[in-house]
């Protein structure tokens, strides 16, 4: 019972309840909204955000912040496609994901070396590389939409693992690329909870100096964190490409805030040391729910930005306020003794 009340008053609990209320309100305006099909749609729409968010969660858990991941995702995805089409060799879809992930890893290594190796502040470095990677993509790789994607990509995009129709006959389905999210989820959950390396990430987020003092090679761990985040961004970029069935170099960049909001709503703290896989996925769902349902309720899209802004402030502010209240209550309890 106490656990339940804790879960409800935790920041994620508050956000989840707010999201459910929100869905109910939208549902009362638009009755077709409350259906299984909507849930499937929601899962599909939160796919790319979810993958990106898992990478960002690792960075936040270590006490850093990454804003360059969308640029990495766009770069990796577009460079992979131009490479494959330029060489004109048939590559299986799985191969495309591997190449994109590898490019993402290399770009992540750039972040890692600057942050871990040189000890520069993470926000400054990733702000710089966000602009750098995007600029390099548009200058050296290309600016043309690639619409003639290979046939195997089209058939991959058309393969559904779930398909359903709602009461008013709209079709919604879950594409095969959903398995990428499942795979990344399993990997990150395993990394963070079952390996010593994963616990080291939390330890560094909790106290970097403390980690150094017990003999953890903080610089090395940091390099790896950004390589892993880059790899995941590369996978997210490629997933985005298969969903839209074209490679647009102007895509993705600009959605950073959505993803960071998702991660923060999921309980990761900007100050580091906290963040769970479940919370992060929940955060991605909530952000997507709000964005898509506002759209379906006919609210102008500028309003989404207002709502996301409010959610970020709530997500980061609530833990602090709740913490303060808890301390106050503890003080009163002490007085009662």
């Amino acid at each position: 019972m106490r656990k339940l009340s804790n879960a409800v008053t935790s920041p994620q609990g508050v956000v989840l309840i707010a999201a459910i209320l929100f869905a109910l309100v939208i549902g009362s305006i638009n009755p077709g909204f409350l259906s299984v099909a909507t849930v499937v749609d929601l899962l599909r729409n939160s796919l790319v955000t979810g993958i990106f968010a898992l990478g960002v969660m690792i960075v936040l858990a270590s006490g850093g912040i990454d804003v360059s991941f969308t640029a990495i995702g766009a770069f990796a995805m577009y460079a992979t496609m131009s490479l494959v089409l330029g060489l004109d060799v048939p590559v299986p879809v799985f191969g495309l994901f591997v190449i994109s992930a590898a490019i993402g890893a290399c770009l992540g290594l750039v972040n890692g070396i600057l942050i871990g190796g040189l000890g520069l502040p993470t926000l400054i470095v990733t702000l710089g590389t966000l602009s750098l990677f995007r600029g390099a993509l548009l200058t050296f790789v290309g600016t043309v939409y690639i619409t003639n994607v290979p046939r195997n990509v089209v058939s991959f995009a058309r393969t559904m693992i779930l398909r359903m129709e709602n009461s008013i006959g709209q079709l919604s389905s879950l594409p095969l690329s959903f398995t990428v999210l499942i795979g990344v989820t399993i990997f990150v959950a395993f990394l963070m909870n079952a390996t010593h390396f994963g616990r080291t990430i939390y330890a560094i987020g909790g106290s970097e100096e403390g980690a150094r003092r017990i003999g953890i090679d903080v610089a090395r761990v940091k390099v790896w964190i950004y390589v892993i985040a880059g790899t995941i961004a590369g996978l997210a970029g490629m997933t985005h490409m298969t969903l839209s069935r074209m490679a647009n170099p102007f895509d993705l960049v600009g959605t950073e805030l959505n993803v960071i909001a998702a991660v923060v709503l999921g309980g990761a703290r900007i100050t580091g040391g906290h963040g769970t896989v479940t919370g992060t996925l929940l955060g991605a769902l909530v952000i997507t729910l709000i964005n898509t349902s506002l759209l379906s309720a006919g609210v102008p899209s500028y309003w989404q930005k207002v709502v996301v802004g409010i959610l970020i402030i709530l997500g980061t502010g609530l833990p602090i306020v709740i913490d303060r209240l808890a301390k106050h209550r503890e003080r009163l309890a002490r007085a009662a003794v």
Partner: protein
Amino acid sequence: MADPVLSMTGIRKAYGPVRVLEEVGLTLHPGEVRCLAGENGSGKSTLIKILSGVVPADAGSVTIAGQTIGADARQAIAAALSVIYQDFSLFPNLTVSENIAFLKTTAGGERWHRARADRRLARETLARMRVDLDLDMLVELLPVASKQLVAIARALANEARVIVMDEPTTALTRSEVARLAEIIAALKAEGVAFLFVSHKTEEVFAFCDTITVLRDGQVVAEGPTSAFDAARLGCEMTGRAIDTQRLARAAPVAAEPFLSVRDLARKGDYAGVDLDLRPGEVVSLVGLLGSGRTELSLSLFGMLHPDEGTITIEGRPVRFTDARDAMAAGIAYVPEDRLTEGLFLDQPIADNITVATLSSRGFLSRSALKKRARDAVQRLRIKTPGVEPTVATLSGGNQQRVVLARWMERSPRLMILNGPTVGVDIGSKREIHEILLALSRAGTAVMVVTDDIGEAMALSDRVLVMVKGRITGAFDADAVDEDRLYTEITGGGRG
């Protein structure tokens, strides 16, 4: 006697032209508790850094359990050395059991995270210490004393044979210190050796078998604790004779109080407080952490609001809405944690001294500010080449003087100081006490909030004892002894 588990010989270290350590040697046998005593700046911390492999020595060797240690923290940890820093360096976001197991799993190059193995190790280690803690509690939620126990357990879980403790009792209450002493005695019997870094004389005598005194980078005295007494230890540390007796006071105490408090209460913090603070008088408020002493003093400074009761200044009732009101009424408050609440560490000394007294017209004269800062530096004998360097470059005692200088610039009518000499060595402590007495003689009312009984005795005219939010005793400092006060602050006086 058995072979030493730790020996350091001929350690030398210089930073640029400044020689920090010269030919320092130190040995530690299994089951021995040695105190490394010295003032701030004596080279203690550098020696510990070399010992733990964080900083390389210029010359000399460190041998732990038969292994020679280079400048590598991991090597020192592998050789069974653990340093428990003053801030404990734990991971606040992880659980007790994870924290206890982390050092061992890291040192052992563990690849996987096994929560169950962590818990078993933590449970066994805590059982060895006869301590009971909730293994799943996040460390950030633990009280300070329990955090220290977790830090000790973490060292023991890694089979530490030498444990270095930096200022281990600073944040502990008396009963917690007694408990720590028990744990250390039990571990001594198992052959664990301890090196205490300290400048608190009482704890040196309570805990240690042997003493090494460091001054200006050299070992100036060494021997069994029985060969030392407080006076000799102070003398060796500072290089001059330190009077540990009460300071003489002269100024007649004014009859009319500057500030009076009647029936002050704040729910959860304190209740029924009566208090008079007179010009020319030094009053100490002694109590344990959590006794309400800090909350009461913050209320006098307008930073917390009492629920009931009255505060009067020179007979007129006042109600402070914030610290600015209190400052306008002539009250100054020097906070407990000068580093986070009081000082701008990265700013020049001059700016730190003058920041509370900037001209109200909105324009600054840099040269006038600098002159004022230089005068203050001279008056308070702050050891610094000038007023330009940042406060971060000063030692603890000198930083505290900068805080004092800032408030003295305002010529306050009442100065409240919370733990004015926490983390300050005895030489500086004495000088800070003298500064406060001079202030008092000049007609300022001074209130010192402290848990250091010796300090209260040396400094004050009256000592007020606070237990669980109530003032339970008021004593003339001339007519009470330390033991009586100890009993009083732990609530023993009331049966």
